[in-house]
């Protein structure tokens, strides 16, 4: 089983990101589970959501305490207490950031990839919503699921222009990070 924790801020599509990832797993005939940890729901507040992907039915409903990977939608959240807690040793962190991956890896003590998802999203969607770009980058890094499964999950949730723009965004995002570098960090 692979467990992810996605950190973001209210309004960044954190829950949708988790739902899309689990839906992509289900599209691949695997089992997926995703749920948010709701807090005070308001724009800008730190929020988190959890994803599990497995080859057998997932029955546990506990929050993901020891994630294999973290996706962090806002670099400033790295300074919020608890964001890095429980990350499995060797587990990777994907951060929406324009800083250098090497510097962040050294700073955080975990393999970290910095990826400027906001600018890329702005270019494709015309809106600074980084969630789908980060998902695509994560799939590219970890190869947990093929990118096509994310496209299929997006196609179920969005239509028309929004879908088209997101599909072009994830194609682009997947190319922006080194493919497969986190294959060995997986725990499944």
């Amino acid at each position, binding site marked *: 089983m692979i467990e992810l924790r996605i950190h973001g801020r209210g309004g960044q599509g954190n*829950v949708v990101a*988790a*739902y899309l990832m*689990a*839906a992509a797993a*289900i*599209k691949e*005939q695997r*089992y*997926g*589970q*995703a*749920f*948010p940890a*709701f807090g005070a729901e308001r724009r800008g507040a730190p929020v988190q959501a959890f994803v599990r992907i497995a080859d057998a*039915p*997932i*029955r*546990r*409903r*506990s*929050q993901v*305490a020891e994630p294999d990977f973290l996706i962090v939608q806002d670099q400033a959240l790295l300074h919020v207490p608890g964001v890095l807690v429980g990350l499995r040793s060797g587990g990777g962190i994907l951060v929406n950031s324009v800083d250098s991956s090497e510097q962040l890896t050294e700073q955080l003590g975990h393999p970290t990839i910095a990826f400027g998802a906001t600018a890329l999203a702005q270019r494709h969607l015309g809106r600074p919503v980084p969630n789908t770009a980060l998902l695509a980058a994560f799939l590219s890094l970890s190869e947990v699921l093929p990118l096509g499964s994310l496209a299929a*999950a997006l196609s*179920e949730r969005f239509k028309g222009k929004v879908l088209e723009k997101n599909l072009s965004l994830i194609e682009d995002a997947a190319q922006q990070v080194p493919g497969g570098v986190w294959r060995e960090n997986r725990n499944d």
Partner: protein
Amino acid sequence: MIEALEGSQALARAVVLCRPGVVAAYPITPQTHIVENISKLVADGVTDLELVSVESEFSAASVAMGAAAAGSRAYTASASQGILLMSEVLFNISGLRIPLVMHCANRAIGAPLNIWNDQSDSMAVRDAGWIQIYCADNQEAIDSTVQAYRIAERTELPVMVCVDGFTLTHTLESLELPSQEQVDGYLPDYVYRRSLNVRQPISQGTLVGPDVFPEARHSHHQALINAIPEIERANADWAAVCGRDGGALLTVEGDPDAEIGILAIGSTIGTLAEAMEEFPDYPKVRLIKLRVFRPFPIEALRAACAGLRKLAVIERAFSAGMGGIVGTEVRANVPGVTVYNYAIGLGGRDIPLTIYPRILDAIAGDDTRFQILDVDLSRLPEEDR
């Protein structure tokens, strides 16, 4: 077909598959998504049910009651404080023996204000005379929704299908909805024998004096007891239709020969089941999932507990000043078994896998007093510990 669905979204579709004529509800987190999704299905033309916007939960329950009494299959849903605001009507619905189905998206009750999951709301209305079904997962919640209409209409008793708020309602997972043909074949058209009809006028809800009130109460109690075989049949018949069996009154897994058992209600069971595999240093137990809480399935419970020495009852609510609700009822009905009773996960506190060894450590001793097992006493002043 397996789909990736959020619990609420799946429940909305399950309700619509049952072809209710009237849905009335007032939004309250975490129930809101269910009715929102129903309204989308109405807007999309998937169903032509009448969605009635009301100004409170009291009205929501009243509209649903009136619609069901007037001969239309009806539905409502609520949670937490909303259930409490409905509570007067809930007693009327069951007392009038009106077959209605509702979801309770289980949530804590304030004060202190808390929007998260526990089961204080449905437990607070356990004596309202409704059948109560607690779902372990969203698939069971879908299947229980369809079964609930069959049970309600055959027994003329309302059914509350309880789904843990957020933990189930806001979780997206692999789910399978039945086909319309499957539901139509299982669930006949709505018939209510005392349906309000201007051509054959009857009175309902009239004053009942001491001369017959105890008989009316007895008959209601007996109807709930008599519902047990109907609940079992509804489950078996549905399993024959769709191949899924969520268990009728309760189910047992784990080690059937274990002398130690854990009984839980609602979505906690899955976490306990996986935790049992994750802690090989701890023995496997007999894990009992109690699905039906009203009527209380005494015979099935005794059979499930046969041979047990110790049983831990885990619940997400309690009666302040007394202790566990489920635990107290179980203790009263399983002679010879030492019952330990813990509340966990109140107000949405996460229930981690480590709860399993914690429960087993707690029941190793002789102290059977009720405890909130995951409480942190160090955060309380001395006199409150």
